[in-house]
């Protein structure tokens, strides 16, 4: 990679130069081969688990326990069996409700907060930023005992997902932080021009800023969607007493038990839980990767 363009001297036809160029070319080719073989080895490590899971998902009951890695016959009906398992469709619907409403509420409630923290000057702004970053890093377990008592003993919401959805209408620290980082990159002139035109701050935010930061909104929406989709602890605390309120992440685990050692069905269920996330990712890959980059680099 490095030596390919290194010799700057023009070719003179001298045999020594020709030999040097040949060596350089060979070195570059070897480098290409080394890098790409390493790449393939790494790709195997990352992709093979998916492949094994998928192949097992279409095996018959007994075959999943044998040494065979390749299914014969391909038992596609496993997916059907999982889909028809009582509850699975309900868990799917609950997960979707939780993830979609959670995402919408989080973005709508976090946006004005992020905007204020990025664009307004006021006393206590840095203190609020410190608090936002601190809460962003805290696990939900820190306040779970009082929160649980509050939602279940005082409001009687045990066995529902409401205790998880309602707080999302009040801003999420990570979303606020990420949107603010993005808003900082927008030059002041845009908001000032809108203000000169007589726009109120809220109108400026909705009509001028939101269209400009659409990629950032897409990124935080994806993060939040995946967070809800993957959440295990929340549904475990609030929904465990009522299977009608379970989500996929929480219900998936009961599959292993319900089907004993039927690894094929368990893996088919696993595939069905992974699939939507992967499909969403392929449609929104760019926004997602930009978002991840933002968490680490532009801080």
């Amino acid at each position, binding site marked *: *990679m*490095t030596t390919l363009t290194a010799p700057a001297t023009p070719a003179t036809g001298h045999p020594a130069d020709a030999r040097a160029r040949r060596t350089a070319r060979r070195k570059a080719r070897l480098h290409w081969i080394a*890098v*790409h073989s*390493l*790449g393939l080895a*790494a*790709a195997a490590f*990352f*992709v093979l*688990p*998916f492949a*094994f*899971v998928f192949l097992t998902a279409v095996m018959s009951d007994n075959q*999943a326990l044998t040494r065979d890695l390749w299914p014969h016959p391909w038992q596609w009906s496993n997916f059907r069996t999982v889909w028809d398992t009582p509850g699975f469709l309900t868990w799917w619907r609950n997960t979707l409700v939780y993830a979609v409403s959670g995402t919408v509420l989080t973005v709508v*409630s976090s946006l*004005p907060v992020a905007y*204020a*923290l990025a*664009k*307004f000057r006021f006393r206590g702004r840095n203190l609020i*930023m410190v*608090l936002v*970053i601190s809460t962003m*890093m*805290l*696990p939900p*377990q*820190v*306040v*779970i*005992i009082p*929160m649980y*008592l509050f939602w279940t003993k005082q409001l009687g919401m045990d066995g529902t997902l409401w205790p998880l959805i309602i707080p999302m209408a*009040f*801003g999420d620290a990570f979303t606020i932080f990420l949107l603010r980082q993005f808003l900082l990159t927008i030059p*002041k002139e845009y908001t000032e021009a809108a203000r000169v035109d007589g726009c109120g*701050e809220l109108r400026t935010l909705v009509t001028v800023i939101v269209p400009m930061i659409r990629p950032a909104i897409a990124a935080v929406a994806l993060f939040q969607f*995946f967070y809800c*989709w993957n959440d*295990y*602890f929340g549904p475990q*605390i609030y929904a*465990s007493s009522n*299977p009608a309120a379970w989500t996929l*992440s929480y*219900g*998936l*685990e*009961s*599959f*292993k038990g319900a089907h004993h050692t039927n*690894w094929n069905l*368990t893996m088919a269920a696993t595939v069905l*839980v992974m699939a939507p996330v992967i499909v969403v990712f392929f449609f929104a890959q760019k926004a997602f990767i930009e978002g*991840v*980059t933002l968490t*680490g*680099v532009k*801080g």
Partner: protein
Amino acid sequence: MSAAVHPLLRARRRKAALRNLAFLSPWIVGFSVFFAYPLLSTVYFSFMHYNGVNPPTWTGTKNWSYVFRDYPLFWPALRNTLWLVVVMVTLRVVFGLGVGLLITRIKTGAGLFRTAFYLPYLAPPVAATMAFVFLLNPGTGPVNHILGDIGIPTPGWFTDPHWSKPALTMLAVWGIGDLMVIFMAALLDVPKEQYEAAELDGAGSWVRFRYVTLPNISPIVMFAVVTGVIQTMQYYTQPLVAGKVASGIIGNSGQQFEPGYPDKSTLTLPQLVYERGFQRFDYGSACVIALVLFVLAMAFTALLMRRRNGFLSAED
């Protein structure tokens, strides 16, 4: 002093203050109701005996001494966390950086490689954990079949206390996608001229990495390490699900599961909050553990904020 301020100016200031308050209101409500108040309650309950049925009664520091002295799961959980911080965080950062370096050098099919490296990060944790418990199943999993065929000893993975943490580490290293993307962006930001200058001086690839790449990306390495430590202290879903599934406990059946299978080797602090609070209804001790978690997480967050002032830098 207020007498000196022009009434018009004062009105405008009040309007701005109201506007700020309106924009910040979702966070102010959320922070007070869902964080500040429950945090104070957690401190309060940590000095109370409370089981959710009888009214809470004052017990002084009894919960605290129970957790630190008599609770048999506390120190194993802390030791496991330390193990995971040392091994898992290090391997994740080293591996993430390695894959990041690799991806910046791949010329053919770079997009395909990047997607392949990134995808596992997206796998829902419960699903990914169940997949790994299956892959590493000692008797019937494909990994041990393959290891057996080549004649390598086959470990018990998630069923062996010595191998359960290495198995979790493999799962964590598999999901390296986030770090890869962050490192990739950092590596592409290293000024090209510095590499060229080093090359003119005859520096080999190791010297270039050590004296050009590493100093340039060290803030990002630091960021990855500290956030890795914070995430590891909160490690919950993967060790819990791995323990449950590997032990053969029927999931969610209401059957009591003592977390940490096998032999406390996968215990982490958040699992103790669950065990104390939601399995034993000992809310007082659960709050003590929650506060330990809080203090540890805050300490590392403070470190992160000190090291990266950029976090707080604002416009103008």
